[in-house]
């Protein structure tokens, strides 16, 4: 606290600190926020150590509180209330940023560090087989197969359905049917994943009497995927300038060929991005898979028959086992899952940038 005090005195003593000239305003030096932040961090650690608080979260909270109060008081005293409010807002915004960075960075860090422990070629190419859960070893080959098949099937169902629905809404849709579809696409966007799982459970398993299978999971995943595809495709189709359509129609090209040859090629980059982002999203879904695919320890290549495994479900089940070895496997599978989703995202965004119409930002 002491350096803060001397600083304030120094400012108060400086001639013209509070200027009589209208344009000059007493300002804290540029390094004030940084100095205050350091001092607050030191105070936070000091109090934390001194009082023997064992949680780093508390240290951080104390430091943050000290920083906010000190900034406001100091600025209000030297620069006036308006500047103080401005500095307070700046401080809070920076803190919001740091507050969010810490857990999110920790999440990625933990996953990478703990996940890389058992992640190797063997882990990727073997299933759990008959390995007892408490023992080290085993792998995620069966889960990768399951995820690829389930997500692939879901995409096969959802992508055409979503694409055509979007085409209907943008190119044909007027009147009550289009309004209803738009409304229910919104509703569908809000369906919790577990409810989609329960729906397929009630129809496919409880009423029609099928057993668990990868395909059952795919249907639930497709329900989650369709609205995302519709929304993103719709946005992309709307970006296609009307002049293009009119030019084609004026040449006597039928509407369906105009859509197929002019509208879709113009927006194909954005549509692909949208579909890939939707794929990335459903790849991480666990709940419906748990209800409908159940999970398995061995390789099942047939998505239409019997239980399968999937990556997110594998993470959950390994965590449930609660042994050190299974925790390691859970982290490793989580790392694979995160890497897959991230790569999909990066590629999708890359396509979007590459194919983006050359206007706007």
């Amino acid at each position: 606290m002491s350096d803060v005090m001397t600083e304030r005195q120094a400012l108060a003593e400086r001639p013209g600190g509070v200027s009589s000239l209208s344009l000059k305003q007493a300002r804290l030096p540029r390094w004030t926020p940084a100095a205050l932040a350091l001092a607050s961090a030191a105070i936070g650690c000091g109090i934390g150590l001194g009082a023997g608080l064992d949680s780093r979260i508390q240290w951080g909270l104390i430091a943050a509180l000290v920083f906010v109060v000190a900034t406001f008081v100091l600025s209000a005293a030297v620069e006036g209330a308006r500047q103080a409010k401005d500095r307070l807002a700046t401080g809070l915004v920076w803190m919001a940023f740091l507050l969010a960075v810490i857990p999110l960075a920790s999440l990625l860090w933990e996953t990478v560090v703990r996940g890389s422990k058992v992640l190797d070629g063997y882990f990727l190419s073997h299933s759990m087989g008959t390995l007892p859960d408490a023992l080290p070893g085993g792998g995620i080959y069966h889960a990768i197969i399951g995820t690829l098949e389930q997500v692939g099937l879901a995409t096969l169902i959802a992508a055409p359905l979503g694409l055509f629905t979007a085409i209907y809404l943008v190119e044909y849709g007027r009147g009550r049917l289009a309004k209803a579809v738009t409304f229910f696409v919104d509703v569908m966007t809000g369906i919790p994943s577990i409810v989609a799982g329960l729906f397929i459970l009630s129809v496919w398993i409880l009423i029609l009497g099928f057993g668990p299978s990868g395909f059952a999971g795919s249907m639930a995943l497709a329900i989650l995927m369709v609205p995302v595809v519709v929304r993103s495709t719709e946005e992309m189709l709307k970006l296609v300038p009307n002049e293009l359509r009119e030019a084609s129609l004026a040449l006597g090209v039928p509407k369906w060929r105009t859509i197929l040859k002019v509208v879709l090629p113009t927006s194909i980059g954005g549509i692909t991005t949208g579909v890939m982002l939707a794929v990335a999203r459903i790849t991480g879904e666990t709940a419906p898979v748990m209800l409908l695919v159940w999970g398995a320890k061995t390789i099942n290549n047939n998505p239409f028959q019997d239980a399968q495994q999937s990556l997110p479900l594998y993470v959950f089940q390994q965590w449930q086992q609660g042994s050190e070895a299974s925790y390691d496997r859970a982290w490793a599978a989580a790392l694979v899952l995160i890497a897959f989703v991230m790569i999909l995202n990066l590629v999708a965004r890359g396509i979007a940038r590459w194919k983006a119409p050359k206007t706007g930002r």
Partner: protein
Amino acid sequence: MAKRIDVSGLSAFYGNHKAIDDISMSVEPRSVTAFIGPSGCGKSTFLRTLNRMHEVTPGGRVEGKVLLDDEDLYGPGVDPVAVRRTVGMVFQRPNPFPTMSIFDNVAAGLRLNGTTKKSDLTDIVERSLKGANLWNEVKDRLNKPGSGLSGGQQQRLCIARAIAVEPQVLLMDEPCSALDPISTLAVEDLIGELKERFTIVIVTHNMQQAARVSDRTAFFNLSAVGQPGTLVEIDDTERIFSNPSVQATEDYISGRFG
């Protein structure tokens, strides 16, 4: 109330690109000074250096001096917020705050500066709207959103908002370019009245407008595209439009380029 402006050796940059080069001039108090010149010659940029608005554009940077009476706007310890409060600005497109009522729009600057008493606010808002020749048109709907007015009314609302905080100088960046002829006339009349109280600097593309409203006119030009803009000459408006001392000015005014 009104102050004079003395600019010396002023250059402005966007990143590494120099937009205007080494400009020196004086602006007399209680007068209207018009900036004319071809597009891209930096007159708007120069205008924005006079209230430190240039530096809010990313990469915006200024060298040189702008003295308001005797104070350098770019001197050490000068608060840009205080500068902008002292030097008001009206923009090309009318920009009343869309979520505020007409009253709140005019009161916005006052509230920032700590005037919160309702009766004070009411007085100043009324005075400012009268000053902007808008009072009679809006006095019955002060609580309606400002975005519901016509373009010309919106621009006068923005002028009322700017003069409500009693600035020393009023900068206008092509204030009529988005308005129809009748609204333009109303704003031009208003400028004629406002110069009794304020130092006014106006950027315009319309030379008739410069001739109509201004006492002095500054002509800006650039030697080539990509080169920084420079001040060619500044003189009494009458002289600029009848007998300019530089050939380029005459060429521009007679429509030979630009």
